[in-house]
Each structure stands twice: as structure tokens, then as C-alpha cells.
């Protein structure tokens, strides 16, 4: 060989047994990378196809009137589901108001005040247990606690069922969010003479807020789509919502009712309601992320 660079082959030991092993490792590395990419796409398939179906089937009936009109009677066409949109927003909103403050404050307690106390262990254990409880059990609880006590099906009962469902999710994600706040921030605050309360409310919570909001949005998204806790608490209604103490329509129960009807128009409307539900959840999610990630400065 006349080219001096040809010595590089000897230098790197291209034909040694060691070099074969290195080649094998490097090929395996590439194969596993390819596998990961392929599986990521596979995970997208069900998500993508659901979204595609919802948009494809829901789009034709989507116009302003679905938000302003009441559901059509069985077999009739036209109409909308404005009352269900209002009902879902009201019940999820009330559920959030009931569950988020105690959940976040409980997370503050178990993370900032006495992380190793028995009470904290009990709260953590109960919350983890509750995340595994089927949603219909939350409905049964609200039925017993609110419907039987007040003597009627109501939006309040629905909201209580959803709140029970949301509470553990918010609590556990908030705890993780608080644990994620750098120790250095706490030290800086204490070092400047802040009390624990001031440190938590001026430094730790604001810093954890985007992550806490993510947890809250996950809980909201799940609650907004739940049917089981609502069917025997809020029931359904053909009319606009008048108060929290009366049976109330919701998108999820409307989808459940209409999709099982033998009428083509109602089934189409169920698809449209599904699309509206997806859009609502996405919109609140994006808004919350925008608002709370800018909070910092």
C-alpha cells in the first residue's frame, strides 16, 4: 500500500477479534434504536386512528347551532347539545373547585411539612388506592352521599362524583411537582429570613405550578370524559341547566345515550359531541399551559 493512511486499518485493529465484537455491539445499538422508533410509531396508531375517526365522523354536523340548541327528540333531526356542553363545563368546573384546593394543600402538607409522619403516609397510601378505584364506585359514593341525602339527581352529585375521581390524581401529581422543586430555592428563601409559609407560597408553589397544572389538566381531561360516575348522579336532561340542584345533561352521557340509538342522526350527533369534547379538553389544556408557564416572570 502506497498511501500512508492505509496504516490506519492496522492502527484500529480492523481485523482483530476485538473489532468484530465492537462491530456487533454497534449493530445491536442501531437495531435497538430502530426498534424504539418503530414502537413509538406503533403507539401512535390507535391514538391517530381514534382522532381521525372522531374528526371524520364528527365534522359534518359541527356548526354553531350545536352549541345553541337543545338535543333533538328520538328520531327527530336538527338540534344540538348546548345544554350538555354547559352541563359538562359546570360539573367539571365545580368538581375542580371542590377537589383541587384540598388536593394541592394536602400535597403541600405531605411534601413540605411532615413528609415522614404517619398522617402523610396514610394520605399517600389512600390516594394511591383511590387512583385504582373504578370510576363507577365514585358514582355510587356520590349517589349515596348526595343523591340519597338531597332526594334528587343533580349536577352537584355529578360534580362530587367527579371530584372524588380527580382528587387522588391531583394530589399525587402535585406531590411529584413539589418534590421536583430544587432544594436550592428553598434554601435561598429560608436564608433570607422567610418563614416556611412564605417559602411555600412565594417560591415553591409558583415554581411547581406548571407541573401541578399538568396534573390538574390530566384529572380534568379524565373527568370530562367520564360517563359512569354521572349516569346515576347527574342523570341527564333535555333542557338547559337551571341550577346545580337538578338533573343535568353532560357530553359524556349524551354520547352514551345517542350512540346506542337506532337513529342515524343521533349517532352522527354523538360523533360530533365526541369531537366537541376532545376540542374542549384540548383548549383548556393549552390555555392552562400558556397561562401558568408565563406566570414565573
Amino acid at each position, binding site marked *: 500500500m502506497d498511501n500512508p493512511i492505509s496504516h490506519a486499518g492496522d492502527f484500529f485493529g480492523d481485523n482483530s477479534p476485538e473489532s468484530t465484537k465492537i462491530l456487533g455491539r454497534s449493530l445491536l445499538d442501531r437495531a435497538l434504536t430502530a426498534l424504539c422508533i418503530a414502537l413509538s410509531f406503533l403507539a401512535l396508531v390507535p391514538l391517530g386512528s381514534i382522532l381521525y375517526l372522531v374528526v371524520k365522523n364528527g365534522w359534518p354536523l359541527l356548526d354553531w347551532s350545536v352549541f345553541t340548541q337543545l338535543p333533538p327528540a328520538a328520531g327527530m333531526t336538527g338540534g344540538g347539545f348546548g345544554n350538555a356542553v354547559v352541563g359538562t363545563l359546570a360539573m367539571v368546573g365545580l368538581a375542580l373547585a371542590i377537589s383541587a384546593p384540598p388536593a394541592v394543600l394536602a400535597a403541600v402538607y405531605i411534601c413540605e411539612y411532615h413528609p*415522614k409522619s404517619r398522617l402523610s403516609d396514610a394520605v399517600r397510601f389512600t390516594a394511591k388506592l383511590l387512583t385504582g378505584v373504578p370510576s363507577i364506585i365514585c358514582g355510587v359514593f356520590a349517589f349515596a352521599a348526595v343523591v340519597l341525602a338531597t332526594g334528587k339527581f343533580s349536577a352537584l352529585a355529578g360534580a362530587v362524583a367527579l371530584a372524588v375521581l380527580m382528587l387522588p390524581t391531583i394530589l399525587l401529581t402535585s406531590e411529584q411537582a413539589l418534590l421536583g422543586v*430544587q432544594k*436550592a*430555592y*428553598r*434554601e*435561598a*428563601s*429560608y*436564608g*433570607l*429570613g*422567610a*418563614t416556611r409559609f*412564605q417559602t411555600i407560597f*412565594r*417560591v415553591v408553589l*409558583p*415554581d411547581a405550578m406548571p407541573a401541578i397544572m399538568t396534573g390538574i389538566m390530566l384529572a380534568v381531561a379524565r373527568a370530562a370524559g367520564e360517563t359512569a360516575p354521572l349516569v346515576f348522579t347527574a342523570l341527564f336532561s333535555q333542557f338547559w341547566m337551571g341550577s346545580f340542584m337538578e338533573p343535568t345533561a353532560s357530553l359524556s352521557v349524551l354520547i352514551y345515550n345517542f350512540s346506542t340509538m337506532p337513529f342515524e342522526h343521533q349517532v352522527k350527533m354523538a360523533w360530533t359531541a365526541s369531537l366537541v369534547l376532545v376540542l374542549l379538553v384540548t383548549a383548556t389544556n393549552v390555555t392552562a399551559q400558556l397561562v401558568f408557564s408565563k406566570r*414565573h*416572570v
Partner: protein
Amino acid sequence: MIATIPMTDKAQTAPASAEMDEVFEPQLPGRPDIITVRDFNFFYSKKQALNGITLDIPERQVTAFIGPSGCGKTTLLRNFNRMNELIDGVSHTGDIKLAGRSIWDPSVEVIALRRLVGMVFQKSNPFAKSIYENVVYSLRIAGVRQRAELDETVERSLRGAALWDEVKDRLHESALGLSGGQMQRLCIARAIANRPKVLLMDEPCSALDPIATMRIEELINELKKDFTIVIVTHNMQQATRCSDFCGFFYLGNLVEFDRTQKIFTSPREKRTEDYVTGRFG
């Protein structure tokens, strides 16, 4: 109501004669000791981290703590503002006095103590807030609302930390956009906004490049006109450059405490000499 520690003027009571100076080296005339540590033992759970430390920190001087990692210098520093109490299971015996009063005296509120004894940390830790809000944090938590006072504090503190000219046009931008050296100077500004008496610095330059380090060291020389500074450092040159007094710690013991010049030129202890000349550590 927050109890404050009266800063007794020991200069009036302590005789400043030449004879006393001989006895009470390293005390200087008119420079009374602001922190006195007596037979201080400190424990993390059962592990003893400091053994019978006794030393005096003179007012408005720079005192450096040097020694290998794990020797207890940071532990002692973090006792001066009782930051170690944030850790579970710590205990101590002996006493530390600030201006003549024990920092564990029941009349001393820990939050008042920390306002008098400010701290700058090894890793700069500005809050995820604007530069302005970082500086006025200690005023905000004290309930100060007057705009004029806040503005005045921001300018005074940032000038004091030699940062004003670099950030005056972007006070309301995020502090996280600053460079590493600027962030550390912001933390110094935030600490002096409180008007503390003592400034504790825990390896303030260990994450900075030489130029940023030089600026902090210049700043330390400026700040000692107004504050007593205690600095922990691994950098021997830094200790010689910017400290007046120096304590050498080893395995939880204070081996030697003296004027910096003496520690580095004619230490009494062999171990000190070995360490400062780089023979170990």
C-alpha cells in the same frame, strides 16, 4: 412581632489597649468579634461533624475557612444562620453567640437571625422571578410595599454587588437569563438587600470562571467595609487574596485559626503547613 438582636457595641466595653491585643489575638482594636463560637460540637444524627470548635470572628473583616472536603467548614458556616436546622436529626452542644447573644436564645427568632446573617450559596440560586423581584424578596416577605423603598433597595443592592450597570435596563426580565457570574452577584445583591451584619459565603466562586471569580473577589473586598464576611473556599489562592483571617479545618477539628498571612507563611501546626503548601488535600 419579630424579635431583633440588639447589636451591642462591644468596642465601647472592650479595652482596646495594646496589651489586650496581645492576649486576644486575632482581635484588632475597634474591631470587636461579632461571632464567638465556644466548645461547639455538631452532630448529623449520631455522626459527629464538628469537635469542640472555639473561635472568634472579627467584625468587618473577611474570615476564610479552608480544609479538605468533609472537614466541617461548611457545617460550621451553616450553623451561623441556623440553616442546618432544615436537616432532620441534627443536634449540637456548646454555643455560638452573635454580638454577645446566643443564636439559640429563646428570644432569638430564627427568621430574624437569618435577616442579620445573610447567605450566598455554592451554586447560585436566583428565584425564577425577575431580577427586581429577586432583589426585593427579603423586603416583600417583611411586608414592605412602598415602591420608592423597593426601587431604592434594588439600586443600592445591585450597585453594592457591582451588577447595576449590567442589568439596570432589564430589571424586569427573568433572572435566569443572566450569566453564571451575574447570577452569583445577583444572589449577593439579594442577600445584602436585607442589610445584614454578617454575610456567609459557601464556596461562592466554585462554579465560576476565573474572570467572574475575580469580580466576586473584588466585590468581597468592597463589601467588607460594611459587612463581616465569612467565606468557605477550596481555593487556597482565593483565601490568601481576599481574607484577613483564616481557619484551617481537618476532620471536624479547627486545627489553626490566625491571620491569613500567618497561616500561609508561618503556621504553628505541621498539618496546616502541609495543607496550604499542597502536600495533601
